[in-house]
């Protein structure tokens, strides 16, 4: 081993020691110091009560299946509507100009409004016009509100993907005799969608959390169930239960998405 290699090995060892020491120090500080805080016992009782954790968990899991159901039927709708809006904003034919205006207006409105407002407005407002049951269900109109809001975001992401495909590819395809429609379908979209997968993964996770906002108009999903328990027990532990449930769902989902994307990248390069 030459002197440089020795030096580098020494530096590496030193960095390792410092990193472990500081990590141990921080963890110890958290574990030892936080419980020393005068209010720790009260905080522990309010947020981390094992008794309440156990009492609330079964029904919370039950309520979470509603989150998953709403998410599962919303996500494909969001993808579909988002794609339509993105395509509407990308048309170039002069005759279809009103379509572009519609797409732009849709995105402006639904991306600019707070989700909660859209949920209230659509979830209470439209059924209030006098729809009969079951067509006035908060599940239906809450889903519509979520889909409208999220497809506005997804449309913008897809549009950025569509615009990232270079003009030369379209020109080449057109010169080969493909129609405008086929250029979009076979040349542009396959590349565009792949490029924006990571951004859309973010939207999926955000959507999964925002499903909880539907609880404002009635459905008892996991966050509402937590709120109910909070009121009954006067204790915030049920929210911690909800957080744990959310994390056990989102963390593996993101890791899996990362894995898929890496795999795809390796296959292509």
């Amino acid at each position, binding site marked *: 081993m030459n002197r440089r290699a020795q030096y580098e090995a020494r530096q590496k060892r030193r960095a390792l020691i410092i990193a472990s020491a500081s990590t141990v120090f921080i963890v110890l500080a958290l574990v030892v110091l936080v419980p020393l805080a005068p*209010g720790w016992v*009260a*905080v522990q*009782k*309010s*947020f981390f009560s094992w008794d309440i954790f156990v009492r609330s968990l079964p029904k919370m899991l039950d309520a979470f299946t509603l989150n998953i159901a709403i998410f599962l039927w919303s996500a494909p709708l969001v993808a579909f509507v988002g794609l339509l809006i993105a395509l509407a904003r990308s048309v170039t034919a002069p005759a279809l100009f009103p379509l572009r205006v519609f797409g732009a207006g849709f995105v402006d409105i639904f991306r600019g409004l707070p989700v909660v407002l859209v949920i*209230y407005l659509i979830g*209470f*407002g439209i*059924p*209030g016009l*006098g*729809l*009969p*049951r079951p067509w*006035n*269900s*908060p599940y239906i109109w809450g889903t519509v509100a979520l889909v409208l809001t999220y497809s506005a975001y997804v449309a913008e992401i897809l549009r950025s993907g569509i615009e990232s495909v270079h003009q030369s590819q379209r020109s080449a395809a057109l010169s080969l005799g493909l129609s405008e429609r086929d250029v979009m379908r076979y040349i542009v979209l396959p590349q565009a969608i792949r490029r924006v997968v990571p951004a859309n993964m973010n939207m999926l996770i955000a959507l999964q959390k925002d499903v909880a906002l539907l*609880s*404002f*108009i*009635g*459905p*008892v999903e996991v966050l*509402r169930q937590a*709120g*109910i328990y*909070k*009121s*009954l*027990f*006067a*204790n*915030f532990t049920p929210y911690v239960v909800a957080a744990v449930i959310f994390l056990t769902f989102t963390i593996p989902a993101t890791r899996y998405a990362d894995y898929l994307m890496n795999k795809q990248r390796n296959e292509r390069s």
Partner: protein
Amino acid sequence: MLRKISLTILMGSALFAAPSLSFAMDKCADGKTMTEGKLTVATGNPAYYPWVHDDAPESGKGFEAAVAYAVAEKMGFAKENVTWVRTTFDEAIQPGVKNFDFNLQQYSITEDREKVVDFSDPYYSAAAAILVRKKTVEGGLKPEMAALKKLKWGIMQATTALPVVTDVIQPESDALFYDDNANVIAAMQADQIDAAIFDLPTALFTAAVLMDDGAVIGQFPADRSENPDQFGMLMAEGSALKTCVNEALSALKAEGSLAKIEAEWLQAATDVPLVK
């Protein structure tokens, strides 16, 4: 006469000591409030009629505002020494220092809540009442259990209406939950729910004022709901003030003024039938 004069001289000589003297004499609450000599009372934001009129508890109008001032007076606080603050339900139960001496906004006393905060003795026992739209009544709804089971129920989250619906009524379809009165009414007007449970005064007010077509069709006899909802004043866990508040409340009860306040501010609702 002589006595009066000598007293005046005495008072005069002790001019500066006098206020603190009168404090120290027999006030249970001394040194137990957040600010010495002041009583800080919390209510909701907004505070609802008929508990507080016009969202202005300082006026002393409304049942809870009146009770708060009566209790304060019994504890030895003049009206101008009562300060009002606003809290949400969550702020009242969160761990840490409270920003009020006691908090009254229709908090039902429950065993689980009592583990985290302290409650005074109850100042009001509320019957649970059923609020519906007039068209439901015209549709032939009677306050009978069999009919109530078929309804779609809405519940306000932070209330103890939940056990009434899930344990007593046991409806055929799941209840929907809302954050506040306004949302329950919106859902009822959107026909998403048929009926909701409130405490009787709130139900009567909601039906009469907040809704165009509201009706209170029944109330539960006291033994139906496991315990009739009893409202207590919420205090920090282990509050030293609790005994003073309870003393004041029992004095008010004994002399009949609490009942008088109730009669003055809460509409007598003898015409609401009991649920069979």
